[in-house]
């Protein structure tokens, strides 16, 4: 049983090999997420709908994986489970070798905080906050000091050539800039895992390519990325694609079924 002692400042966390920035201290590849016979059933009154059936997948640290398939195949459902947002009906889920299956919501929230970043089709920016303040939020909630927050965010904005948008409000940005802000917000705490659900759904082809380039850069820097998409073009950009249909994994170019 791994000790799970977390300081509020994630960068000082003392969990052995969870969310520490010193990747060189850990093996380069280890299992980030492992599922065993995950099933997810939704109940609406007396009607039950099985969204996922017997999902068995392993995703290692540093992988860049896409979940692809048509609408309704269960991509978003699987993504929400892998992102520790939703809970499976049955089956086991391991996150960094910790069995998450029996964890309560507040325990999963604790695990999510600072360790998993989320990007969605809708950037979900808060309209009353500037770009800087939107990106700052995760750091604020994790009680980073103001100076630290400024340094981290400005570095990130400089890196992605967005420093000139620092004081703009979401309504003043184009779609790509909004999505980039969302990505920066999701990655500002240097999470182990980035979950992206149709991140380019609203973008045109040029904007889409820019965003995908950003994801590639993040992955090259060591971030594990799981991306859900219904676009074959996008799934082809990722080294590993898990194809789904009607709640099942059909192909996984890691393992062919």
């Amino acid at each position, binding site marked *: 049983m791994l000790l799970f002692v977390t300081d509020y400042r994630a960068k000082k966390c003392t969990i052995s090999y969870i969310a520490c920035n010193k990747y060189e201290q850990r093996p380069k590849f280890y299992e980030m997420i492992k599922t065993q016979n995950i099933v997810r059933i939704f109940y609406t009154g007396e009607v039950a709908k099985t969204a996922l059936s017997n999902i068995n997948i392993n995703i290692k640290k540093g992988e860049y994986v896409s979940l692809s398939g048509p609408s309704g195949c269960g991509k978003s459902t699987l993504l*929400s489970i892998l992102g520790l*947002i939703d809970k499976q009906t049955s089956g086991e889920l391991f996150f960094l070798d910790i069995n998450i299956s029996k964890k309560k919501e507040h325990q999963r929230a604790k695990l999510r905080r600072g360790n998993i970043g*989320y990007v969605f089709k809708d950037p979900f920016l808060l*309209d009353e906050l500037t770009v800087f303040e939107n990106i700052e939020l995760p750091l604020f*909630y994790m009680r980073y000091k103001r100076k630290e927050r400024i340094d981290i965010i400005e570095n990130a904005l400089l890196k992605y050539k967005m420093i000139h948008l620092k004081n703009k409000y979401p309504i003043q940005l184009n779609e790509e800039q909004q999505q980039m802000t969302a990505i920066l917000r999701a990655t500002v705490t240097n999470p182990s895992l980035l979950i992206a659900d149709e991140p380019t759904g609203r973008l045109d082809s040029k904007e889409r390519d820019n965003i995908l380039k950003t994801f590639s850069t993040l992955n090259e820097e060591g971030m594990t990325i799981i991306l859900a998409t219904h676009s074959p073009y996008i799934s082809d950009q990722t080294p590993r694609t898990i194809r789904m249909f009607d709640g099942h994994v059909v192909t996984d170019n890691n393992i062919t079924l």
Partner: protein
Amino acid sequence: MNILHYIRTAFRSLLRNKLYSAINIAGLAIGLGLSIIILLLIKYELSYDTHIKDSENIYRITSIGESIKGEPAVKDALTPLPLSGILKTLDQTEAVTRLIPGANKLIKYNTSSLSKSRFFFADPTFFNVFDLKIIKGSVSELNKPGRVVIANSMAERYFKDTNAIGKKITRGGIEYEIIAVCENMPEASHFHFDFIASISTIKKMFSFNKKMLDEWEKDWKLLTCYTYARIRPGTDIRLFEEYLNKKIEQNETTSLSKNNKITENPFFRFHFQPIQSIHLHSKLNSEIEPLSNPFRVIIFIAIAVFILIITSINFINITTAQPSKRLRDAVIRKTIGARRYHIAIQIFTEAFIISATATLFGLVLAELMIPSFNKLFGLSLNINQIQGLQDIGIVILTTFIIGVISGGYPAKFFSEINVVNIFSNRYNIHRNSFIIRGIIITGHVFVVLFLSILTAGIWHQLNYIADKDLGFNKKNLFVIERAGAIKKDYENFKKDLKNIKGIENVSASMSIPGEEYLKMHFTYQGTDNTRKTPITINYVDCDYLRTMEMILKRGSFLSCGNKDSMGVILNSAAIKRFKIKKPLEEQLETGYNEKTWNINILGVVNDYNYEPLNNKIKPLGIMLLSKHNYFRYIIIRVDSRQNTKALSEIRRLWKKYSGDQPLDSFFLEDRLSSIYSQDSRMLTALIIFTLFSFFISTLGFLSFASFLIEYKDKKISLMKTTGIPDTYILKDILGSFGKYVLIGISLAIMPAMATVKIWLKNFAFTENISLLTYIFMIVIVSAIGILSISYQYYKLVYKQSEHYLIRKRLYR
């Protein structure tokens, strides 16, 4: 600082939704403003007689009398004159004073005259009991006759730039030297004065009959003066009261038993009434000025609490009216790492900002509204009365509590959102939150209906009082006050008046309906019972019955001349009290100082309301005014109030007969209405608060309608796209709204009716409000709700195109 983040975000969020924020702040501000005024009013009411130094140790002694058969016959604020003599001898008494109100006589100084003044005679120890500041002069000579101390307001009015000390005023033929100017009695006092004259002056007034003066000073039966005592702190007042009463009984020199011939039973017991309790709790006869009653204070407290509750509820309503946006924000924050308390702090910060802003605006509004309220209530409230740490603390605490109440539910509601919704981007409103919103609507309906019914009940009763047949014709009765000024020429005056066209009748009277009356003791030696009872007496002339248009039930009225000087007309209540079977064949006995007289019962009048309608009709005797009796009023029946010619003739004749005496006059109807002026003011205040609660509730209904439409969004969209008519959809929405309204109505009716009933207990004569009135109120409240829902439906649904609705559902 972290808190700056929340404040900054809260401000920006409020500015983004300017309309909602403005409505929220406006509603809270008006509610707080009204509550502040009510609280100032309550503070004022509760502060009566607390501004005098050591007021907690000052008591008014009151007289409680029992007649022989155990019936309470006297409950009076007046006491016999000799009482203070006994009190002075007791160790626990630090100071004692008597106060005798003077009649409304003209006061002259040089060429100016003052007709309505609050003139009292008092012992020199008055300023030992009531520690009022002496601004000029000295009160050391208040023991000498013909000395007077004037209140500062009077000095400023009549002696503006000159020194009042040493000046002489004349009243009733007696000259008074002004020896001092004192500060005014505090506004919140149960009595006020303009002049305090030495009580020894009365001896000068009675100097023509020393025996009568001596008897008057020693009479334990006559309730003549108000007695106040400052008692040593720490005294057990109940024990002291017992001790005093025993001492009075045992003291032979007081001759309590000798004077009133009741040797076997004590007639009066004296009770110590703390002056701080007089204004709200005194229910005695002969009060110096009209008092309030605790019911009014309770009603105002309840209104203040109701207003604060509904404005806080309204805040919750408006904040959570369109929850999707807030839910979305909460989900985003939680997804990126916010804990529940982060969301809650954000919402509370917004709530406190709105609450604090509303408090500031509320204080400003209160200051702007106070002059109108002062005019309405005849008060001098001032926003500066909110001073000191305690008051400021209350304002801050109220702001805080409103912030907590208003922010509590939204904070809980939004912080509990499940982050899984972010994947569906659908924020379904849980049924629980719908039920809670429904309960809020029930609360609104309860408050509005409660206040409406209460207002209707009071309005109905006051209308009933205004229209009630009092047993005499109160219309077109022109009354001249201080009529004794032309006592000598009264007959000529009356004769000339009767010659004026438009004047139907003229009469003189010692008292008039609504004013104080004398009391006399009568004994009836019946065949099967002997009853001695004090009954109210009025001395009138022979035209009184005709002028007042009263109904004589039996016998005849007093005739002119002296023939009926030993006769009395009784009312039906007196006949009942004495249990007289054949009144015209009976006599009553009365006496004074060993002398007794037999009085013939000449007739019986129907009961008429000579006292305010708060009181039952008590036994009354009407006797003939003699040459020696002083009368206060001349009552003139004119054909119409609008007969200005007749009225100006009256004024001309008055001037002719009275010389330079100013004419103090009024129409009796107006004077009788003014008795209920406090209740009228309370009604006006209630109307204002009820209208305000209607306004707030309408906002609440509109917010609930937005919420309801969002809650039923899916169903509405489907119904619209499948072509179901709007009336059917609206009916469905109204059905959901209707049940909460019904609950509110059923909860409000009984408490409202009970409250009206409690208020009506102040009156001996009441009329229940009809069922139709209740139904009307219910219909009004329901109609406002239905209109609000319909309006929101029209705005949010009906005007939207079906195409939009389809897109909204399919492409969410």
